[in-house]
Every structure is written in structure tokens, then in C-alpha cells.
């Protein structure tokens, strides 16, 4: 839990006031998207949902699976 708040602090400390349009080029790259491989994430979420007790985080945690 403390790790979560530490990450929040780290992120907020390195802020910029604003970004001009030409400074958003790097973030516009497809590999810089927060979920740049949604199929992989979905497969992984499904595997971990059926093998562990936790789910969700990045998005909704719902099952839709009666995994045994």
C-alpha cells in the first residue's frame, strides 16, 4: 500500500506545467499508450483471474468466466 502512495508521489513531483502540441509526439506513439496491447492484457487477465484470487486494477475486474 505504501508502495502505491510512493509511486503517486514520484509521479507528481516530476510535473510539467503544460505541453505544446509538438511536445506530445512521443506520448502519441502506439507503444506509449497505457494499454498498448489490449489483447495481451485480456488474455493475461483471464489467466490470472482463473489462477489467483485477485483481478482488475487496470480496468474492471469482472469474471465472465466460471474458471475451474
Amino acid at each position, binding site marked *: *500500500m505504501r*508502495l*502505491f502512495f510512493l*509511486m*503517486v508521489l*514520484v*509521479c*507528481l513531483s*516530476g*510535473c*510539467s506545467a*503544460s*505541453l505544446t502540441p509538438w*511536445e*506530445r509526439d*512521443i*506520448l502519441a*506513439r502506439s*507503444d*506509449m499508450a*497505457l494499454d498498448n*496491447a*489490449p*489483447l*495481451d492484457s*485480456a*488474455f493475461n487477465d*483471464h*489467466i*490470472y483471474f*482463473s*489462477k*489467483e*484470487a*485477485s483481478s*482488475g*486494477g*487496470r*480496468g*474492471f*475486474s*469482472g*469474471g*465472465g*468466466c*466460471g474458471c*475451474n
Partner: protein
Amino acid sequence: MQLNHSTNKNIRKLLKTATGCLLGASCVANADENSLSGWETDIAILSYTETDRVSAIEPTINTKKTFDDDSILGIKLVVDSLTGASPNGATPSNNVQTFTRPSGKGSYQTASGETPLDDTFQDTRISLSGSYQHDINRMDKLIWGANVSNEFDFFSTGGSLSYLHDFNHRLNTLSLGLSMEYDVITPQGGSPIALAQMQATTSTQPKLNDTENKVLGELVIGLTHIINRETIAQFNYGYAQSSGYHNDPYKVTSVVDNLTGESIVGDSLSGTYLYDSRPDSRNRHSFYSQLKHAFGADSAEVSYRYMFDDWGINSHTIELSYQKNFDDWYIQPSLRYYTQSAANFYRHSITETDAANIGDYLSSDYRLAEMWSTTIGIKVGFKTPDGNKNSIRLAYYYQDGNTSPSDAIGIQKDYELFPTLDAVIVQYTYSF
């Protein structure tokens, strides 16, 4: 001079015709149709293989289309075909153990010293989901989601709505999401009475219901923060509440002798096995944070999730990955480490004395046990001669828990009381 609304609407159509004439039939955008106004599709296939246990093959097709008003419609179909054996919760014994199949019409046996595995399951699941994203105005958008899935003993349907708001010169996005899900469980043979003993095929096994159900509601609040030109972060808080049937109808707990740790003769079987019993509600809180940073043409990501619930489980998940981009291809190694504490009603087995006053809840499902897991993976993306994107991903998943807990009794000390697991994952994706 003012133009009214109907005149305004006509203008664009007429203007389009006029420009068409001016520029000639072969107007502007001449690029490949698919990449512009058509559907962007990914087909993927996942193969998941555990050593000596479950295997699954999961083909998927996912397609999305962006319309002129920037709204996006997405549709996804997943078929999941599962075979193999899964631990049923009972612990190993020096003797051969016999268990009754869920249907009540057959049985299976476990050799001496082996972890009991139920190999009944050959299950195919089909799942269909859709999403629609559209702008409300320049800074706000909505994403609607709906899904339905079906396998022979489980049906699920749900919907979700998320609202996203950009602010602070689009350096930040606030998101609020709500999701609801309704599950119908039709256990093979009906749902067993919680904590009742498993009976032999020749005896009657009283069952509760043919169908059980469960409802799940979830709220996720998220904040995206652009830290600087190369760095972006995401924070999510999620609260999920589920209510209804949470038991696993196919899992049991072994009752063992107080001193020897050996299985005790039951009503009709050579061992005493009590059916899984869990609370009929579960409240979960999760905190998720993710950081992505570009290192030149490459990118790296780290994420951490903390989850705790009212079953006594808390977990930590850390994931790291680094994507090295070359001109036409990329390679991405990744690592995941997960650890969880046990649910407060989890026992690897219970002694005869304890069985007399268990309380309401008891489960030996290894997924509720204290455990940790590691995943190491590598993914390579490249283009095929037709110009479309492909990727291959390989991962190794290893899960371990308290194989030799301090409260192991007698013969239990000779056996592994947590069914360690290792699995290989192979995935191939093709996009066009």
C-alpha cells in the same frame, strides 16, 4: 445574414458535391481502405499449457472501427477450449482415494501420494463483448460496454459505463467507471450442500439447487497524469462488491486424523471430503498505479497493484516490461511478481476435531491460499511481407505456495500441501 439549421446541413452535402467535381472523381485520400475507414482487426490465438494439469486454447477475434465523428465501435469474440485436470482441494494420502464426479454418475481415483486432480472438465466457453466510445464534447467522452459469455455450467452477462474527462490542458484525465455483472451457475449435478460430505456414486448425494446466481457491481475511479514529454502515469482505485453464490461446487476439503494426518473413512467413501463453503458476499478494494516512460525510441513500463478484501485476502502485484523498438520490429521482455495472503476460511485440510466446529465457511481451493507467482515473458513484434503487424509472445508462469506448512500433521509432512503449478503460454497475434 443568418443561415438557419436546415440550410446549414445542406451546405455540407452540396459543398462535398462541388469539391468532388472540382477535384475530379479520384478525390483525395487514396490510401489503403482498411487503414482509414474500415475495420481494424486483430486475430490471436493463445495456448496455455500447465505441466500435467490444465491446457487451454483460446482463439480470439477483435475488431474496431473509428467513425468520422471519432466515435469507436469495438467487437470481440473469444472461444476458450479447456481440457485437463485441476486440483479438487483434497490433500494427498498414503492410500488410493476415490472421488465422485460432479454429475454423481462416475468416479475417479488418485494414486497414493498424489495430489488429487479432477479431470472431468472439457469445457468450451464462448464470450462476446462490445464497446462503444464517443465524445460528448471536446473534453469529455463516454465508453459503453456490454458482454455475454457462456460455458456449459456458467453463464455471465454484464454492462459497463465509463466517463472520461480531460482537464488541465489535457495533461490529466479523470475517469469514473461503473460495471454490473450477473452470473448464472448451473453446476453439473446441481449445487452441493455446503460443508456436506461427498458421497459415493452408489449413495444419494443431496443437492441444493440446479441453478445458482451471483451479482457483481464495481466502481473504478482513475486518474491519468502526463508528467512530462516522455512520461505518463495512471492511478486507479476500484471497489467491487459481489453477492450470491461464491462456492466452487466442485471443490472439497479433506478431513484428516488429528495425529496421523491420514484421511478418515467417510459415510460412503474411503475418505471424508466436505464441500466448499464461502460467504455469499465479497467486497474488494484495489489500488493500481502504472508508469510509462520513453527512453529514446524505446519504452518501459512498471505497475503495482494492491488488493484487499473482506475474505482476509490481500495481494501485491508488480509488473515490469521494456520494449526495444527497431525500425521494423520490436522485442519486449517482461516480468511479473505476485503474492497473496490466504482467505481467512482457507485450510489445506482440517483435523477431525476442528471439523466438529468449523464455522460457516471452509475452502481448500488453492487459489485462496497463501501463494506467490512469477511470470517471465518475451514478445517479438514484426511485419509480414503484406505490411501487416504480427507478434509472438512466450511466457512461463510459475506458482508456488506453502507446500510444507508448519501445521502439517503426520503423513502430511511427506507430501506437498500446495499444488505448485507451472505453465507455458504461447500467443500469436496478427493485425490487419
